[in-house]
């Protein structure tokens, strides 16, 4: 069938008689379609010189003659082999119902306006859903806390390993580098005032209060919130969530709580790692570039930096962790049963959780400043 030299299909019209010539097959579909479109009305067609015929060619013949005429193919083309008649009949039957689905709505300024409205509405709905989901998670958490035999220690530990333990190297490396950069910046700016010694304060302040927790939270948002969304989203696509529900199991308790709790445990630890390693990076730069020895660094740290900065940084960690985890899980549940949708929601979960972390951090900074902490 394939390697034979193919004779391109043609439609010939002479003396009110149409004839189909050559191969009416998929490779010639486009040109044949044009030829068919040029013919206005046809009752029958001469198929004596027809070469190959496949379903696409048969579909074109049906387009040309209409399904009813093709159905009666034995009347006007009795010499056509029986199997071809059967093919034509099958395609004619299939084309009997209208094949044109309704067109999708067009564009225009009004549509753009409508899209804008829908986006705003979706944003509002998203926030409502988030708050509702937080409530659901918290109430499930409360119930579960009171019934210790339902605690899922194994699952929790597994998630702590994935989200916390496995993230330690990357968090440490990243904060170390940022710590070094901050120290360099401080050194450059403060040198003009002859106050390079305050680089120590700059690094420790920023890492204890802000950078330690912020960098760790953003990393977890990218690393873990996306994983949560993809895991739960593909479970949803595969009807696994429905299967859980149908077995009387609570997906919030089974899937969300272990993840949220694991995150709430992991992020404070990662924050501590981030603070330490950021200050280490700063101390290294101080030692190498500013001749502030590590001993001196530690001395200043101990003398000048009150404990409350550490606490201000630390209290934010569980809050951020909870939000990032909840957003990751919720986006997973919102995914529809398609690869595209899982991808979109994974993106959305990362963007949302980073946004929320930074927003909350800004609010917290304002609050702590006003309180004089």
């Amino acid at each position: 069938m394939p390697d034979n030299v193919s004779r391109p299909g043609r439609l010939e019209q002479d003396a009110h008689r149409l004839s189909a010539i050559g191969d009416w097959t998929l490779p010639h579909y486009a040109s044949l379609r044009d030829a068919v479109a040029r013919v206005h009305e046809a009752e029958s067609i001469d198929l004596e010189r027809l070469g190959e015929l496949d379903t696409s060619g048969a579909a074109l013949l049906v387009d040309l003659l209409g399904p009813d005429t093709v159905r009666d193919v034995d009347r006007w083309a009795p010499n056509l082999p029986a199997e071809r008649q059967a093919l034509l009949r099958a395609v004619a039957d299939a084309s009997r119902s209208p094949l044109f689905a309704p067109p999708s709505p067009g564009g225009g300024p009004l549509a753009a306006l409508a899209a804008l409205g829908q986006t705003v509405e979706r944003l509002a709905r998203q926030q409502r859903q988030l708050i509702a989901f937080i409530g659901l998670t918290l109430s499930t958490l409360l119930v579960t806390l009171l019934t210790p035999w339902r605690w899922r220690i194994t699952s929790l530990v597994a998630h702590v390993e994935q989200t916390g333990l496995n993230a330690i190297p990357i968090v440490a490396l990243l904060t170390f580098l940022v710590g070094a950069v901050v120290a360099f910046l401080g050194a450059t700016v403060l040198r003009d005032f002859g106050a390079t010694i305050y680089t120590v304060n700059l690094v420790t302040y920023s890492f204890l209060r802000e950078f330690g927790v912020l960098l760790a939270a953003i990393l977890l948002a990218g690393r873990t919130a996306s994983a949560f969304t993809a895991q739960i989203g593909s479970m949803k696509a595969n009807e696994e969530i429905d299967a859980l529900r149908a077995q009387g199991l609570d997906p919030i308790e089974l899937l969300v709580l272990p993840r949220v709790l694991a995150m709430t445990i992991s992020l404070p630890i990662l924050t501590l790692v981030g603070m330490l390693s950021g200050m280490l990076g700063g101390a290294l730069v101080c030692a190498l570039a500013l001749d502030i020895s590590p001993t001196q660094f530690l001395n200043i740290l101990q003398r000048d930096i009150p404990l409350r900065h550490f606490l201000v940084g630390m209290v934010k960690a569980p809050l951020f962790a909870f939000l990032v985890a909840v957003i990751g899980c919720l986006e997973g549940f919102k995914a529809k049963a398609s690869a595209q949708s899982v991808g979109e929601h994974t993106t959305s979960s990362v963007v949302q959780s980073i946004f929320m972390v930074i927003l909350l951090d800004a609010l917290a900074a304002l609050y702590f400043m006003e309180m004089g902490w």
Partner: protein
Amino acid sequence: MSERGEAIVEIRGLVNRFGQHVVHHGLDLDIRRGEILGVVGGSGTGKSVLLRSIVGLKRPDGGTVRVFGEELERLSSARRARVERRFGVLFQRGALFSSLNLQENVALPLIEHAGLSRADAERLARVKLALAGLPPDAARLNPAELSGGMIKRAALARALALDPEVLFLDEPTAGLDPIGAAAFDRLLLTLRDALGFSVFLVTHDLDTLYSSCDRVAVIADKRILVAAPLAEVEGTDDPWIRDYFHGPRGRAASQAARHHSSPNGEER
């Protein structure tokens, strides 16, 4: 046109294993041009794995698989793609592209391989979907919005998109209503007679075996027990085959088939 009956797929001494678990050991099988080859065997005997190793999705752990006289493994990727274009595959679980609607699913190979314009391809796709027995308004549905049987039909339409030379069908009638399954059997015969393709048909549906298959291959014990016309297979002396064809369901299906074909011979 090449001769009917020549082997277009030759499998010799095929070995497949997953870790310690040997699925096939020394399996031999031919698919001949223009035939509908039914493949039967118990659950987990490796029918789907066999299909995957023929179309090149699983690298055999031993033996050779020649398709159109060539080993897919040895071909350059361009030539391999050209061979693979001559396949149509219906996967056991449908494997429709979840981000595309049905007409886009079927139109994709038409656009990519046959070079049709999008409008042409989607129109042809709707014909194929209708041919597979789906209503016209299903064309814009997404795979997630389909029933189990509709998924099978849509997957069949996609497998037929390019009018392939070899059609691999993994349990196409599982999940279809009996009327739909009978219509499927008829469609398969009609298309095979008109287009002359070969079919590798994995099925548990005895009616399909009786009504459509030219030969039946039985997988058991990690190899092909017999591959022969149905009458011959039925007579093979093997406990599994005896249970399969002479159990209550097998008897009913064979009686129905005999009943159908003897009084009015024009059924085929």
